[in-house]
């Protein structure tokens, strides 16, 4: 855009509150985008619910298939990263860029670790024979299915829904980490955030809390119940 005036985003403080709502465009835009994200996850989760409660025979036992402990720790980690995000936000509101950088970095690390652990978890699961297509022939889990510990009928559905839902959540976390890292390098380090203008932090923060919230729901319905 040649005329900077047209896009508020490119303006430096003091940036004007928009006409319409007293919210700047990027924040409003993020809220709108999150509405659409809600519908996306609603579709995936709704599918899970319909398939699970429409299924004939008992549902797969998460406790046996998955490693709940690691994931519980992972959940804790993600919640912490949400807290550190809040701290970063608070820091820049008090006009402390140094503190903000630290907490933003913590958030990035937290998110990255979460994704790492999830990748590890996937490898582990596939190795033991739990795949999106169901239980792999001749694998460890196939034995459990054979001796009736696990229901043969619903393992396929569980694999399909589990990997799709957690996979897309992982994808969202990855996007969040990348965008935070981008902001950290291009905005935070050069000290472009100030008490007057911290829109980037606030906007990415909204996204991050949303992703966190989605995970808490997923963890409950996919791992615990």
């Amino acid at each position: 855009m040649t005329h900077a005036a047209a896009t508020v985003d490119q303006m430096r403080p003091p940036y004007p509150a928009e006409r319409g709502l007293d919210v700047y465009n990027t924040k409003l835009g993020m809220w709108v985008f999150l509405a659409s994200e809600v519908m996306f996850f609603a579709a995936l989760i709704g599918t899970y619910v319909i398939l699970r409660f429409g299924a004939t025979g008992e549902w797969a036992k998460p406790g046996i298939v998955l490693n709940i402990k690691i994931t519980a720790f992972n959940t804790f980690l993600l919640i912490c990263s949400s807290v550190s995000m809040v701290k970063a936000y608070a820091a820049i509101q008090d006009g402390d860029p140094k503190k903000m950088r630290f907490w933003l970095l913590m958030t990035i690390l937290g998110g990255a670790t979460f994704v790492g652990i999830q990748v590890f978890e996937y490898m582990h699961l596939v190795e033991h024979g739990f795949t999106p297509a169901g239980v792999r022939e001749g694998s460890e889990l196939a034995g459990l299915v054979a001796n009736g510990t696990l229901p043969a009928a619903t393992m396929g559905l569980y694999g399909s829904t589990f990997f799709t839902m957690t996979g897309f959540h992982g994808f969202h976390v990855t996007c969040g980490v990348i965008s935070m890292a981008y902001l950290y390098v291009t905005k935070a380090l050069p000290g472009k955030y100030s008490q007057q203008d911290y829109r980037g932090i606030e906007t990415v923060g909204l996204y991050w809390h949303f992703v966190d919230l989605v995970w808490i729901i997923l963890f409950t319905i996919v791992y615990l119940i």
Partner: protein
Amino acid sequence: MTTVAATAHTAHAHHDDRSFIRKYIFSTDHKIIGIQFLFVSLFFLLIGGLLAMQMRWQLAYPGQPMPGGGILPETMAPGGVILPEYYIQLVTMHGTFMVFFAIMPLLVGVYANFLIPLKIGTHDMAFPRINMWSFWSFFVGGLVMLASLFVPDGAARAGWTMYAPLSARHDFSGASLGQELWSVSIIFVGLSSILGSLNYITTIINNRAPGMTWFRLPLSVWSLFITAILGLLALPVLSGAAIMLLFDQIIGTHFFDPAAGGQALLWQHLFWFFGHPEVYILILPAMGMVSDIIANGSRKPIFGYHSMVFAIVAIAFLGWIVWGHHMFMSGMNPTLGSSFMVSTLVIAVPSAVKVFNWMGTMWRGNIRFHVPMLHAVAFVAMFAIGGLSGIYMAATPVDMFIHDTYFIVAHLHYVLFGGSLFALFGAIVYWYPKMFGRMMSEPWGKVHFWLTFIFYNCTFFPMHILGMAGHMRRIYDPTQYTFLQPYQPMNVFISISAFLLFATQLIFFVNFWWSLRKGARAEQNPWHDNGLEWSLPSPAPHGNWEQVPTVYRGPYEFSSPQVAEDYLPQYKKLPTDREPARAPVAGH
């Protein structure tokens, strides 16, 4: 700040210094993006029409070699004779191209992009770069869909609704890569639509010109706003469903595969939960733009502006609870069927209100029949038919007979062609001067309109009769059924009308291209309209206004006693007008 604004203004000066690529290819200017959408989706409109022509040939002359069909590969039409598997690909791709790559981008991609900033009075979209990505995501999706026609085993072939498990299992459909490319392409379209919608919504909420209150918005903007909300919330559901379908196809998940515990009806619920709001995405913007054109053509304020707005909102809300009326015969719980029937019949009411208000607008008007007005009036007439024929389907016992027959085909074409497409022809002619600075040929426009109107009705009205005979949709050769053989002459008649209808559209395309270079230079406000866009020179310059105009009144002040001439622009300050409460923000 003022300095920023100042530099900005110098940048507005009408020669701008961007490279050709930034200016016309990877442009972030909402007008250029709108025009990009226009060219690409007009191309897909032609493709969709071409596919339809092949279907019509096969239906009129089953098993006879199609003229020029020889160029098609043996896997589609050996010796020009269309194969059944190619026919169902035609059915599928015609629907897909028309819905996702022609009508939807023409309405939303083109006119939401072009009109919103111009009509609400701002320099550009809230997120110009996201806007650019929205176009390119759509473009990639289109290319993928086009390519899928030519891969081994051919394109997707489960109908544009992609009912599982036929779409999910290659051994059932006989397609392979084409089926997967369909899902991929749809995911791109979904992304494009979501990016676009969040842009439109943010822009309309936040960036209206001073004085442009909600109830001073033109109905076109209102309908595009509601459409954007529908798109924002509906498309993610489709994307999710398409992703699951793709996983079923390539990594062996079992979402829609009953053989492994999945549910076949799940796809239908997901698809139609998206699909019914989609139906309104395909008609609401048309309604909005027609409202603008009818008020202009009648030289009268819109009759019942507020109820028009509430009708749009009502349709948008009800649109979420009627998806089941596509599934009355699907084995869904009949009690659900009852409730879906009632909600469906209720949604007819706001549509009726709109039709009557359009008539009320024309009543005691001073009607000018410029080409856009002709198309707008045709829209009302045809949409009325399409809406009324919808009532037959809504009544479940009747639907039990006409579901999946040509009655449905007739109905949906009366709404999508008679409705959306007529409105689009009108809109293209109407805003052409603001896009390209020239007028389209009036006489040829009228020739195109009348021929289209005649052949269109000859093509689609008889389909009601076929439907009443029980003629099924999507069948390759009706003569296989003795009870359909007597209707073959009607199929021939429909096909010939369809060929003429297609030929007529070439007039429009020639007119369109010819006028780009040779059309008469357009003045600033050729239709004597009130919208803010007409305060700009034609074509509208990059960045639109240097200082956005202030709005003093609603958009439909035609034949107002306050002034001598029969229109009173929103931006025209009369001595009696007071400045709006909130002053324009610096730099805007």
